[in-house]
């Protein structure tokens, strides 16, 4: 019974995707969105059932195989399900956000400047987002590394297709190419991590892998003669490289800002709520392994904290509404990863969940603004939109308050659990990370409300004055309302079971001495309401509120201030404007470097040395001697060939005689 339900959850979006994709022209727009929305709705409803069973009722984890991909060398490569609190939660979040995005898309993709109305782009888009839902579900439901990798690559593929959805635009097809390549660099680490699992554990199955961890604790691996590393640390770092690609951690973050070339609904679904959190999910899923390597956890912690802080800073100067949200996603992903590195897995996952809702909300609200602005995305073209778009305004406000961690909102609880846990952590790098993340709170508040004030308050721009701006249709606003509710209140009932570890139960494994969240729970926690009340005197909330106030002063009260500041420190601005130079470095070293190397190999090694040197000289010798003969012959090359074969046969007969 459960097996059938899980199979249905997994395949119904796939069926919807196939119907919309293959028969899009025949069934038309309505047929396509009905089929896909129906498919995803089935998944949501059944996921809710599964969520109830596993999270609320606390059913035993379910582990079963779906089908065997191949068996060889005594290893079964399978697809299957591992359902516990962790996957059940992710399933519900993925399907719910996906459903909201499906509905929203009906409005958002209705008209498109890039496509002729007769082009079935609309059907194709629905097909892709349903296909994405299927891929993401197979990733989170997996019970083994192979399937994880399947899902991992499949979401990458759909992301590639969707970033390049406007395939006539050079910027879009450049962005998706880059996204795929950067993700592949991560996948390189990931597949090597899987190879370590294969070599030392002889299985792909999570449970069998976990069972052997203790026996392999002290295995060393010789990287180069004389240099030995802990096998588990190496494996985890390699797997984490994969996570860095998908979850856009520095220095593999460069693809995410450009992924905003895709239509806004998928920025919400893929590049904010679900796919980019796959790396965080991976670490949570493998928590029993990560617990065994302090080194790997420190790496995770430091990379996460750096990403959270440095990417947040870049959010300060963005002028495109989607880019602000994109950098904020990068920064928030850093928070989640840092939490993982501090062994506060539940806190990180908690932030994944709240972030999925409030970030999807923010993106969809930004999309609503973009619709109203007739697909203009520059913040400077907006201003004073509050009175034209009240629903979007409130949605954006709720999303922003959740994002900055305003007391009571969902993001407050998840972010505060991360910060409190980090404060308790004693791992290498944890104080450094704590400072960065704390500073990040101020930055987050500042850039979020900078955008908020510039878009909705202040002077109306010329564009707003001269064009008719109106609130978006119901298919757009209903998802906003539906997402606002969890973004506002979902933290309240979840904080306690998250902190004391009962929410995820045995799905997350933490060594007692690493369990910082339990320390936080026993030392500081006296109920959710108490947490809200006392928070106004704590540093994070003070920082968040000062960020908002400063944004208000700079962008509403004294709007001339930002320009002055920019003039005062041009260097700082330059560093931020060039995004720390990662793109230039990549362009010069990797892109141009490899291309030049390729041309060099092609021209010199293959061309001059092998072809001219080795081959043509031999060829010329043969050809010159053949010239003499050619005079008396037919001149057809294949005649020569035939004669050669005959001659060879004659020679053969002669030798054997």
């Amino acid at each position: 019974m459960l097996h059938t339900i899980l199979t249905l959850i997994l395949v119904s979006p796939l069926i919807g995707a196939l119907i919309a994709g293959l028969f899009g022209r025949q069934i038309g727009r309505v047929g396509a969105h009905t089929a896909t929305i129906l498919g995803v709705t089935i998944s949501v409803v059944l996921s809710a059932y599964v969520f109830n069973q596993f999270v609320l009722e606390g059913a035993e984890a379910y582990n079963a195989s779906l089908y065997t991909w191949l068996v060889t060398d005594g290893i079964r490569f399978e697809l299957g399900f591992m359902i516990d609190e962790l996957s059940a939660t992710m399933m519900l979040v993925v399907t719910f956000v996906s459903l909201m995005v499906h509905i929203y898309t009906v409005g958002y993709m209705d008209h498109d400047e890039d496509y002729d109305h007769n082009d079935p782009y609309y059907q194709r888009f629905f097909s892709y987002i349903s296909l994405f839902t299927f891929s993401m579900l197979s990733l989170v439901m997996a019970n083994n590394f192979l399937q994880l990798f399947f899902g991992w690559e499949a979401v990458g593929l759909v992301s590639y297709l969707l970033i390049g959805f406007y395939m006539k635009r050079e910027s879009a097809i450049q962005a998706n190419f880059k996204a795929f390549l950067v993700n592949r660099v991560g996948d390189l680490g990931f597949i090597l991590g899987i190879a370590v699992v294969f070599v030392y554990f002889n299985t792909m199955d999570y449970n069998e892998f976990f069972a052997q961890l203790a026996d392999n604790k002290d295995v060393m691996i010789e990287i180069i003669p004389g240099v030995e590393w802990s096998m588990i640390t190496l494996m985890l770092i390699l797997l984490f490289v994969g996570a860095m690609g998908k979850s856009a951690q520095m220095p593999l973050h460069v693809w995410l800002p450009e992924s905003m070339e895709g239509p806004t609904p998928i920025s919400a679904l893929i590049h904010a709520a679900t796919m980019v959190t796959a790396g965080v999910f991976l670490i949570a899923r493998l928590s029993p392994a990560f617990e065994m390597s302090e080194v790997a956890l420190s790496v995770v912690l430091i990379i996460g904290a750096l990403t959270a802080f440095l990417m947040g800073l870049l959010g300060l100067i963005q002028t495109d509404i989607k880019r602000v949200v994109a950098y904020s996603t990068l920064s928030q992903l850093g928070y989640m990863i840092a939490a993982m590195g501090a062994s506060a897995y539940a806190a990180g996952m908690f932030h994944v969940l709240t972030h999925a809702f409030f970030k999807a909300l923010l993106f969809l609200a930004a999309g609503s603004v973009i619709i109203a602005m007739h697909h203009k995305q520059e913040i400077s073209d907006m201003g004073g939109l509050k009175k034209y778009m009240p629903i979007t305004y409130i949605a954006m406000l709720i999303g922003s308050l959740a994002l900055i961690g305003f007391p009571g909102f969902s993001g407050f609880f998840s972010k505060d659990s991360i910060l409190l846990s980090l404060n308790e952590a004693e791992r290498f790098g944890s104080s450094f990370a704590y400072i960065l993340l704390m500073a990040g709170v101020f930055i987050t508040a500042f850039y979020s409300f900078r955008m908020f004030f510039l878009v909705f308050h202040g002077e109306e721009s010329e564009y707003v004055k001269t064009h008719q701006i109106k609130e978006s249709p119901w298919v757009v606003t209903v998802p906003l309302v539906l997402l606002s509710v969890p973004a506002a209140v979902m933290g309240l009932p979840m904080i306690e079971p998250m902190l004391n570890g009962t929410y995820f139960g045995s799905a997350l494994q933490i060594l007692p001495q690493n369990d910082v969240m339990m320390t936080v729970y026993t030392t500081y926690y006296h109920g959710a309401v108490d947490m809200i009340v006392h928070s106004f005197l704590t540093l994070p909330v003070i920082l968040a509120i000062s960020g908002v106030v400063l944004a208000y002063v700079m962008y509403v009260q004294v709007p001339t201030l930002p320009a002055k500041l920019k003039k005062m420190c041009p260097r700082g601005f330059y560093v931020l404007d060039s995004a720390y130079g990662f793109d230039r470095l990549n362009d010069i070293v990797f892109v141009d470097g490899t291309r030049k190397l390729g041309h060099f190999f092609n021209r010199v090694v293959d061309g001059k040395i092998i072809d001219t040197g080795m081959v043509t000289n031999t060829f010329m010798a043969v050809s010159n001697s053949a010239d003499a003969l050619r005079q008396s012959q037919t001149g057809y090359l294949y005649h020569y060939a035939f004669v050669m074969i005959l001659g060879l046969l004659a020679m053969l007969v002669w030798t054997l005689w």
Partner: protein
Amino acid sequence: MLTGFPILSTLIWLPIIGGLLVLFAGRNNDSAAKWLSLATVVATFILSIPLWTGFDNSTASMQFVEQVAWIPMFNIHYHLGVDGLSMPLVLLTTFTQVLVIASAWDVIKDRVEQYMGAFLIMGGIMVGVFVALDSILFYIFWEALLIPMFIVIGKWGGPKRVYATLKFFLYTFLGSVFMLVSFLYMYYLSGSFSILDFQDMPLGMTAQILIFLAFLAAFAVKIPMFPVHTWLPDAHVEAPTAGSVVLAAIMLKMGGYGFVRFSLPITPDASMTLDWIVIALSLIAIVYIGVVALAQSDMKKLVAYSSISHMGFVTLGMFLVYDIVQNTGSMQGAQLGMEGAMVQMISHGFISGAMFLAIGVLYDRMHTREISAYGGVVNKMPWFVLFAVIFSMANVGLPGTSGFVGEFMVILSAFKANLWYGTLAALTLVIGAAYTLWMVKRVFFGAVVNDQVEQLQDLNKREFAIMATLAIAIIALGVFPGPLMEVMHTSVGHLLVQATTSKL
């Protein structure tokens, strides 16, 4: 299985006789030539299916055996048979032949009967290579294949076809002469030309080394391996589409097949001593050739280099067993690599065939293969681009396509043999994606760049059917590789025992 029906002979001679018939009956009657050819390849394909359905997975011995004395004086036999290593390749051949004939349907207008006839004859000969169990018979098929291919490129090829054909011919011919000498030497020792006898006979180390190198010369050229690979891009560029398809999908596999049928079982000790040569050349193929592919401006050349790079996985997977045994003390993991290599051959047959057919579709319309002449094809040919992107993603080794299966297996196995082998091999994840998707970006996506692209028509029904068949094959093998594996298990296990049993 023992139906008594000479199924292997039928698969060899039906297309050859059909080809001769087409040559004579199809003169001045293109339509008859086409239909007769199609009937022949379809019949051959259907007749090859019992090889799969009647195959006994539990044994490594030869099946569907046919043996009659041919030249008794030298103990040469007309001896045919298949095992789990060759049977899938036979099916790949008969399957590809159908697509090859279909792909030339309206495209070739000049001397249709000769073109079709050449491909039919090639099809029979290729089956012969995979099923011959007598080394002389094998050698005859091996060399005979050059003639129709030579004619196809030389006659229907591009402007530099003379250079390309001679290069192709000399390379492969020179490589295989050494192989023939090895056969003769082993005949003097054993009194038999049977490949199975060669596999069982004892051989001294010096002899093994020399024979191994002779085989390496023959097979390395065919696969091709660095540094004897430069004939392939030239041959591809000049060959007509169907020629490229046969070349990439089947002829390259003959080299890989040679390693598992000859090198490993006949010269196991030399293979163990010299495995580093093959491994080093394979890794160079995967990494270096991949980077060279990035620099190509001609689509066919790019896919040709990509083929060489992918064939690096085949040779790598085949020679991992020795390092695995040496480093871990057991064979665990070697089977994975070897089967990965075999799957990679089948998969590459589909993918490279598909890529060349896709390029052919564009070439038929625009008469250029220069990447820079294209851009924004998707706007005019959406169905075509759908298939082309599926094929490209398979070329990139995306899970769910056949391209993933072999690469994944070989990478895992290589990592077991040596951490750095695995790491270098895995670089293909990035390099392969770079050259393939960069081409995809420049050719298929973007805005329409010129009037010629503006005029493009999407796939016709025939092209659609070919593309769809390949796409289904690629995805089916990617999602359900299990059945193919089961066919190979026993034979691969047997091969690994042979490869690790000393003959000294």
